[in-house]
């Protein structure tokens, strides 16, 4: 860690394939850790956001308040959030995951509410007219029809979270960021783990995005027929 150009010893090559071969097991572990953090954060985020969205839909005035708080949480830098939580939880999983959850709230609540708001009034009216209870309308009509918008929000949250999880490595909770840290804490700088960490994180984001997209298509068979 120096402001001066790295001149210590020889430079290592930018990428060494045999490092990857030697470290396949560790890469696998790191990916699992990365996915665990992402999964816990996004799943908790979706559950919390769903609850907050229902509150927003029931009491419209609270919607702006909830979005306002979500906006503030979203604007707080990850490093600052860690700074606030480390004194309480130490360098631990909760310290890493709580900020990650908080970043998903804004996007998810907004998308769930928008998704349900855009359900055509006549569809809702028809369901009510057939004797659906309010709760049943929500579960059977509004929520399914809002799936594309909700999944869109989840995709954004998941991809953003995967990127942020690389930073949580400074808390020593693992994930692909650990490779990045390892790479530049070694002297001379070891670029291979850095490249592996970054590239794997990007690939993971793309794959998770794709998986969620396929989930959406499976959940909304009606959206594909007819319009295509």
């Amino acid at each position, binding site marked *: 860690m120096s*402001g001066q150009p790295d001149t210590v010893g020889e430079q290592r090559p930018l990428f060494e394939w045999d490092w990857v071969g030697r470290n396949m097991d560790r890469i696998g572990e790191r990916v699992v850790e990365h996915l665990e953090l992402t999964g816990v954060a996004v799943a908790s985020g979706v559950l919390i956001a769903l609850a907050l969205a229902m509150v927003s839909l029931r009491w419209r005035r609270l919607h702006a308040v909830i979005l306002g708080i979500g906006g503030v949480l979203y*604007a707080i830098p990850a490093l600052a959030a860690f700074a606030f939580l480390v004194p309480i939880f130490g360098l631990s999983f909760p310290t890493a995951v709580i900020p990650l959850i908080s970043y998903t709230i804004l996007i998810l609540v907004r998308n769930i509410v928008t998704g349900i708001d855009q359900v055509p009034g006549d569809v809702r009216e028809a369901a009510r007219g057939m004797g659906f209870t309010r709760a049943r309308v929500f579960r059977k009509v509004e929520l399914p029809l809002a799936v594309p918008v909700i999944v869109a929000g989840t995709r954004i949250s998941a991809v953003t979270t995967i990127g942020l999880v690389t930073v949580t490595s400074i808390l020593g909770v693992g994930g692909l960021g650990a490779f990045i840290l390892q790479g530049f804490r070694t002297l001379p700088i070891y670029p291979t783990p850095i490249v592996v960490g970054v590239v794997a994180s990007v690939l993971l984001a793309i794959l998770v995005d794709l998986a969620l997209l396929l989930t959406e298509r499976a959940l909304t068979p009606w959206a594909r027929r007819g319009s295509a």
Partner: protein
Amino acid sequence: MSIFDQLVSWLREPNRWSFSHPDGLPYRVIEHLQVSVTGLVLAVLIAVPLAVVLAHHRKGAFLASAAVNIGRAIPSFGLIIIFWLAASRANIDTTFWPLTLAMTALALPPLFTNSYTGVQIVDPATVEASRGVGFTEMQILRRVEIPLALPVILAGARIAFVQIVATVAIGAIVSDGGGLGRPIVDGFAQGATGYGAVLAGGIAVAFLALLSEALFTVLERAAVPAGIRRMSATAIARR
């Protein structure tokens, strides 16, 4: 010593309020803002002209949607590291420019997408009418499309800038700079005795991010053309 005591005693250490000494909190605020503002300005200069011209000609729509997705998938930490690595290989000082350019790269997607969308959603009838009365394409862009798109462009700048302010701090992990991230990262390195520094940096950077958000929100509102503001006011009143 409680966390609060640690914070107070850290703030009382020598040079803590210096603008010129690297230990100073104000020094780090300035550094943080230098990186952030330079990064944003460079991104604006690159992304906005490109986006508005492309949007005017309805070209490159895929870029607008792909940009944000790519931007999200690339971890900002990775971006910082890559620029830092490149600078260190090229024997360039790693304190300012690699981090700043990483911030520019980070800001490009939201700026590009918002500028593109902002121009694209201008009512086609308005553009048609301005062409019909004899505006040149440049005049349409400058007098009609850009003023009407300005709030959306500024929203992109807000998103980009808040993201930059948050991310500059991460730069402290890899470089000597990193603005307000410096005390946080150094504090972490000291373990339990460093909480005062961690907390001070955390509060300062959170405050800076929220302040930036608030300032840009005000700017955004001010940029909404008066005629549109009245329109949305009546639209809300009608509901």
